[in-house]
């Protein structure tokens, strides 16, 4: 096993690093280990519907990153009070195995007298409360195991970001499972700061080995490119969501306007508008303009502006429509 030190707290870069080590820079060692953390970030499972999982409004207002993982499972909130670990292992096992990756993490925690246990969802718990989520992917002949550790994470912010407005969304995306959570730092019998915790965990998992690969400038340049082209892109984070139907309703002085939308690969593919509003124009002007548009506020705003219906409907505020639709 070889350790790759990664002090970046940019989640896009950090996911790009994993991806780079799996698809491009294949180190000769059988296993690579990385221990890293991020600025406040919402990490979406690979096959989840992003808008169904997060509170976009809270995320935008607080500058929280939104990024899709390449591993399965549900959405998690990470911040500088938590740690992430990645094992990149050559070969795809005949069958799924979480124990061989989580075992060394539990051993590390035991050295701090933390009574960590496994639960049935491959999460780690202390007295039944989750502090670590784990997921994997098998890609390009490699197994990537990715886990999170809540050490001193801001739960108030976490709850705000993951409390989704109650819109009616129907999709076949993988749904997140809400569990009670706890921070590791609340279970230590002596205070340990977050950097010391990192060192203790890395030393324990590397079992005294100092084998380390230092990323070259060329590596870092390539990782930054992957981050930008893949992990920061709207297409990856929103556009690859499974298809879904969403119903959004706006109430105006002029009446109610209800939108029923089909969204596939991030684009509106069908749109029906219902309501008791009055207008001099046919509402199909608006629905036709929305079909083919990305399900994203700016694109929707532009589509509405371009169809020139500002005065076509009585007492409906067209400027507010984009906020209602998306």
């Amino acid at each position, binding site marked *: 096993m070889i350790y790759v030190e990664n002090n970046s707290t940019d989640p896009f870069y950090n996911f790009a690093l994993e991806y780079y080590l799996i698809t491009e820079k294949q180190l000769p060692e059988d296993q690579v280990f990385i221990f890293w953390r991020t600025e406040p970030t919402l990490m979406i*499972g*690979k*096959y989840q519907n992003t808008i169904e999982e997060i509170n976009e409004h809270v995320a935008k207002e607080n500058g929280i990153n939104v990024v899709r993982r*390449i*591993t*399965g*499972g*549900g959405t998690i909130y990470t911040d500088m009070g938590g740690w992430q670990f990645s094992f990149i292992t050559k070969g*795809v096992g005949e*069958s*799924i*195995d979480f124990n061989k990756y989580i075992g060394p993490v539990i051993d590390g925690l035991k050295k701090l007298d933390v009574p960590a246990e496994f639960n049935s*969802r*491959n999460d780690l718990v202390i007295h039944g409360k989750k502090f670590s989520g*784990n*997921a*994997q*992917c*098998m*890609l390009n002949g490699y197994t990537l195991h990715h886990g999170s550790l809540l050490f001193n994470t801001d739960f108030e912010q976490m709850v705000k970001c993951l409390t989704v407005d109650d819109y009616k969304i129907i*999709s*076949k*995306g*993988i749904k997140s499972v809400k569990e009670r959570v706890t921070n590791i730092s609340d279970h230590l019998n002596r205070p340990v700061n977050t950097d010391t915790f990192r060192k203790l965990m890395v030393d324990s998992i590397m079992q005294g080995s100092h084998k380390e690969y230092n990323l070259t400038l060329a590596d870092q340049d390539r990782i930054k490119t992957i981050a930008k082209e893949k992990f920061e892109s709207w297409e990856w984070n929103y556009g690859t969501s*499974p*298809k879904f139907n969403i119903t959004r309703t706006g109430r105006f002085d002029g009446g109610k306007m209800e939108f029923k939308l089909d969204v596939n690969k991030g684009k509106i593919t069908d749109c029906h508008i219902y309501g008791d509003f009055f207008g001099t124009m046919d509402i199909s002007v608006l629905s036709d303009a929305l079909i083919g548009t990305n399900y994203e506020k700016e694109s929707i705003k532009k589509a509405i502006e371009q169809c020139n219906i500002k005065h076509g409907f009585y007492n409906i505020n067209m400027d507010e429509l984009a906020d209602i639709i998306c």
Partner: protein
Amino acid sequence: MKKNIQMPKLSEQMETAVLAAWNKETGDMVKKGDVLFEIETEKVVSEVESMESGVLEEIFFEAGDEIKADEIIAVINCD
């Protein structure tokens, strides 16, 4: 000759998996080793490669469907 493609069983306790995405469409030429589709089970995303070469003739499930282990997902015509 027609070959059935089944949902692989990735662990002893796996009963079902979600067919997460198709990488091929009906009518596509498929080579042995090509990734046919991706599945997700127990928070693991896995690429499923074709064991056969031929034409992907029929697909019985779409992305998002939950499918039992060993169930037939597609047919490849190897002629």
